[in-house]
């Protein structure tokens, strides 16, 4: 789960990281008020959960409260990558001398947290990593000891931060690690961490991504979820415990198991089609879950066919077939469907579905080919 900039920065502040004075506004009038309170130049920043806000015009400098109101009006009327801007953060503008990148994330191979820093902040770190990898400092942290002061100093030294700023930097780096650890984050990032003209260090932008598996023990953080920022189908899918990712193809997929779901998408592509989604219905496919999955797939107007791919292991194929039949009674389908059932009780499962308006297939390749064909016909 990704947090908004303003939410991330509030968590940073709670962990001793200096952030600009500022507040969030959902109307231009409030934005003007905040600008007046801050009494000077402010930055109006769209709060949307996608990257590239700056390029899209979602981050603007206002020199007066009136200008703040005007720009807030503009930004609050924008859509960025399809997401309407519902809130702006109004922050005191900083006079920037230089920009640093600082983050902590999980290093899978080392199975430890890793601090990542660069004197080249303010840009995409992947770009820096690609162009000038030696400008990136990486330092592994023992998850049982946390980030120690000497390690933070080591980072400061290696990014050649002026020594005057070390003390504050150590505090910021440890605060960031603390935020990461306390919130079960998978990423806590300050980009840029700026040195201002008056020699302060401030976290100008912030990003946190939380571990979905840990949200159950962070009720307060779970409540920060901004449902407005998510595709309604993803919200719906989560409600039913379904794992769903929308894509831009035309063949809806319903599969049991994440790996098999990915493989199903792959074989659709191999047969010249394009998957409309990733969807794992998990083990034990009850009719309500199958029905919810069907509704979600069909809510995408680009879907022209649906491919069911079920491997019956512990869950038997006939059970799944009954789940599908029951679901079909409650959901009106408007596109052709292909079903492929393999594994325990596959014959019985196929027999049950033969009565439904579904094409059946014996192999995954055959199912994929049929789905691609039917989608093309339906679209035409």
């Amino acid at each position, binding site marked *: 789960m990704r947090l908004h900039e303003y939410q991330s920065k509030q968590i940073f502040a709670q962990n001793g990281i200096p952030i600009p004075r500022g507040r969030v506004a959902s109307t231009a009038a409030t934005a003007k008020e905040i600008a007046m309170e801050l009494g000077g130049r402010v930055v109006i920043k769209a709060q949307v959960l996608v990257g590239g806000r700056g390029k899209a015009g979602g981050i603007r400098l206002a020199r007066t409260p009136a200008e703040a109101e005007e720009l807030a009006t503009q930004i609050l009327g924008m859509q960025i990558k399809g997401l309407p801007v519902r809130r702006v953060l109004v922050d005191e503008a900083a006079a920037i001398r230089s920009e640093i990148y600082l983050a902590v994330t999980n290093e899978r191979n080392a199975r430890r947290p890793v601090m990542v820093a660069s004197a080249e902040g303010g840009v995409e770190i992947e770009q820096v990593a*690609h162009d000038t990898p030696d400008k990136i400092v990486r330092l592994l942290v023992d998850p049982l000891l946390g980030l120690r002061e000497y390690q933070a100093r080591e980072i400061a030294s290696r990014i050649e931060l002026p020594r005057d700023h070390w003390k504050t930097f150590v505090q910021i780096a440890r605060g960031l690690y603390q935020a990461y650890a306390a919130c079960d984050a998978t990423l806590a990032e300050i980009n840029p961490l700026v040195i201002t003209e008056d020699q302060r260090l401030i976290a100008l932008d912030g990003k946190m991504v939380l571990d979905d*598996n840990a949200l159950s023990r962070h009720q307060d953080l779970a409540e920060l979820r901004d449902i407005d920022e998510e595709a309604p189908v993803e919200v719906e899918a989560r409600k039913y415990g379904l794992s769903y990712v929308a894509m831009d193809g035309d063949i809806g997929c319903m599969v049991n198991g994440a790996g098999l779901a990915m493989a199903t*998408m792959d074989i659709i592509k191999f047969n010249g089609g394009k998957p409309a989604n990733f969807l794992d219905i998990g083990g034990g496919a009850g009719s309500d879950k199958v029905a919810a999955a069907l509704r979600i797939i069909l809510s995408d107007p680009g879907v022209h066919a649906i491919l069911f791919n079920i491997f019956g292991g512990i869950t038997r194929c006939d059970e799944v077939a009954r789940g599908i039949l029951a679901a079909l009674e409650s959901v009106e389908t408007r596109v052709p469907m292909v079903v492929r059932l393999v594994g325990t009780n596959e014959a019985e499962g196929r027999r049950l579905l033969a009565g439904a308006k579904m094409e059946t297939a014996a192999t995954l390749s055959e199912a994929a080919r049929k789905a691609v064909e039917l989608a093309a016909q339906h679209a035409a």
Partner: protein
Amino acid sequence: MSILVNKNTNVVVQGITGHEGLFHTEQMLVYGTRIVAGVRPGKGGEWVVSGKVPIFDTVSSAVEATGADCSIIFVPARAAPDAILEAADAGIPLVVCITEGIPVQDMMRVRKYLDEKQVRLIGPNCPGLLTPGEAKVGIIPGHIGRPGNVGVVSRSGTLTYEVIHAITQRGMGQSTCVGIGGDPVHGLGFLETLELFEEDPHTDKIVLIGEIGGNDEERAAEFITDRLTKPVVAFIAGQTAPPGKRMGHAGAIVEGGTGTAAEKIKALEAAGARVARHPEEIADLLAGL
């Protein structure tokens, strides 16, 4: 022959009284696995599965009484890190954790602790182990496997079942099937498993099923180049997966431009592995070896 588990493995089931734990204990017993004990704090002294399996309060007491040398964990995510540590502290050398949904920072701490111990962890968020004809320690449907000379290692669940099933359908069989799990931080990886298969005299061919996220497959490719003498058929799921999106498994995500299927396929092909373009091709390629 096999790796990791066989018919002499004595298994203790942690979380045996839960819905999943009990169901799969029965399935494992039916398969012939030696389930010698269950653990459920507060229920020590009771029995489950028609009096076949004694329950203990702690793993250490179960080990003491039964000599269990392998543990399988079905406890909920909240308690699973503790369960792994308890098994390790009780001296169990092989721990299989089926549980899904363990926070990744918990697993980093657990792995750090296990690094000091002589213990192998499989999983979490994995289907476990199947040595056809000998033992199943996990949730892989037993009937789809058949004794043979193909070692299977995979990050996935049902996709693995598909592949096992297909291998069996083509008249071949498996030495051991290892589901290493779909979480970003897990125990046994491709490398260690490949090493075990290399050493196992009864494994002649290997199937490796990877997916997007991380670079375990790239490291496996290095190992294949450097050390492996046995032929490998590989498949990487998620060729069409968009970046930045988690594809079901917590570990299946393309981040910062790395962890793509294309990179992994390239690395494995360069290492001489036959890489299937789609899952049905795996058994074909294997038969052609």
